[in-house]
């Protein structure tokens, strides 16, 4: 099926929540920002101030944007259909996303994908999406 972009809704606090603001500032600048713990060194998602593995403090880093498809589901009942899925980032964590600019029928678990950014509707922030590498 030919790919048709859908409007991306947004609900959240990108400007007023300092804990996550750098993620959205990065996305608007075309960077996928993730948090790495200064104690256990692990990267997590979605971003938190305190590491969800050890409650250590975290620093921001830019992810490579390279990932593999962990799983996906194409919502065929929606108009236009869209493909929600998780990707496994090169840095470790799995991230919920959509796959864009691609033939959903050709999507495969395990395939290489790369990040791209799409502006959300009504003046919302950009968000990371993934497309075949």
């Amino acid at each position, binding site marked *: 099926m030919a790919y048709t972009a*859908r409007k*991306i*809704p*947004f*609900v*959240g*606090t*990108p400007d007023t929540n300092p804990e*996550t603001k750098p993620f959205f500032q990065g996305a608007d600048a075309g960077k996928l920002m993730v948090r790495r713990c200064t104690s256990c060194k*692990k*990267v*997590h*998602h*979605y971003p*938190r101030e305190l*590491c*969800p*593995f050890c409650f250590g403090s975290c620093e921001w880093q830019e992810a490579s944007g390279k990932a593999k498809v*962990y*799983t*996906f*589901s*194409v*919502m*065929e*009942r*929606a108009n236009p259909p*869209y493909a*929600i*899925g*998780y990707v496994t*980032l090169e840095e*470790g*964590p*799995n*991230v*919920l*996303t*959509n796959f864009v600019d691609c033939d959903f029928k050709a999507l495969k*678990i*395990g395939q290489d994908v790369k990040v791209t950014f799409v502006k*959300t509707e009504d003046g*919302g922030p950009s*968000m990371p999406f993934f497309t075949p590498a």
Partner: protein
Amino acid sequence: MSLKGAAYIAGAWEHPTRKAPDKSIALLHAECAKGALEDAGLTKDDIDGYFCAGDAPGGLGPLSMVDYMNLKCRHVDSTDVGGSSYQVAVGHAMEAIAAGRCNIALITLSGRPRSEGQATGTAPRPGNPAAPEMQFEYPYGPATANLYGMCAARHMYEYGTTSEQLAWIKVAASHHAQYNPNAMLRDVVTVEDVVNSPMVSTPLHRLDCCVISDGGGALILTKPEIAKSLKRPLVKVIGVGESPKHQAGGEIDLTYTAARWSGPPAWEMAGIKPSDIKYASIYDSFTITVLMQLEDLGFCEKGQGGKFVADGNLISGVGKLPFNTDGGGLCSNHPANRGGITKIIEAVRQLRGEAHPSVQVPNCDLAIAHGTGGALGTRHCGSTVILERE
């Protein structure tokens, strides 16, 4: 001290309605409460503990409903973990009864998503913007069907599970639903019917999904001395377990459910093993939900769920593990989009020998009722109840 046997299910009642535009949600709760009390042979004034969850109308947990029903309670609990809340409530009620905080506990569930026209499974529903995950999930369109579809896709990828195997779960439910006059879907379907039904969210077809219905149910739990003074068959709670599962900071594994963690404490308390179970009520929001929970509860090896459910193994009188003999959420009802309580009610019917004769399991003395609430694809709770006919 083990809680095993500290409480009995003395009353169980399922609302016959599947569409109730003319009744308030509060009234549905109250009708269920009345039905369960009559079933137990008790009266409203006997209730001193009330348990509900997020489907109870009103802003502050149980307060609106205890006011509406005019209950005089010593103990209330409104733990909300979606459709698994009612198995959790059985465990919490048992603890409260054992601790002497109440003697007669009422649990209610009711809702009317069908009358309210909810696109329950296919429309993403925004929650509280303060939920920490909201802004990282809502833009991607998470809806119930695709959150379970992602689990099915990964399970297929890792274990070779097929759509035809998943379809057998619906086939089994439909064989049972034909005998339930209240069931929404009473036609027996085939594997072909399921895999040829319209795709909702890959790889789940329309017939892999549960129904959207109004309705509800209620349970009465009490301590052994009181249960034994009543006239109903004795259904003893011998095992309970509950556990949430989530995204774990991004370290997800969508091939298993929280049943992997809620099951073991329930089996240990009960002192039995899966092969002892004569009847299983297994939460069935989707076919994949059933398959994964059966594996996680230990009815088969991980990854073997597809083979286990195939060829009618879940059909009463045909297979080794009769499941959801009322037709379950897949065919009968899913009131308030929460199927936990109806799972327990059908298990009670089976243990009492009061299921429909065509699906009644002979000599049914041990049953399990497992619930899942939330979404397998992001975060959910699993809750397990094991019951014994005494």
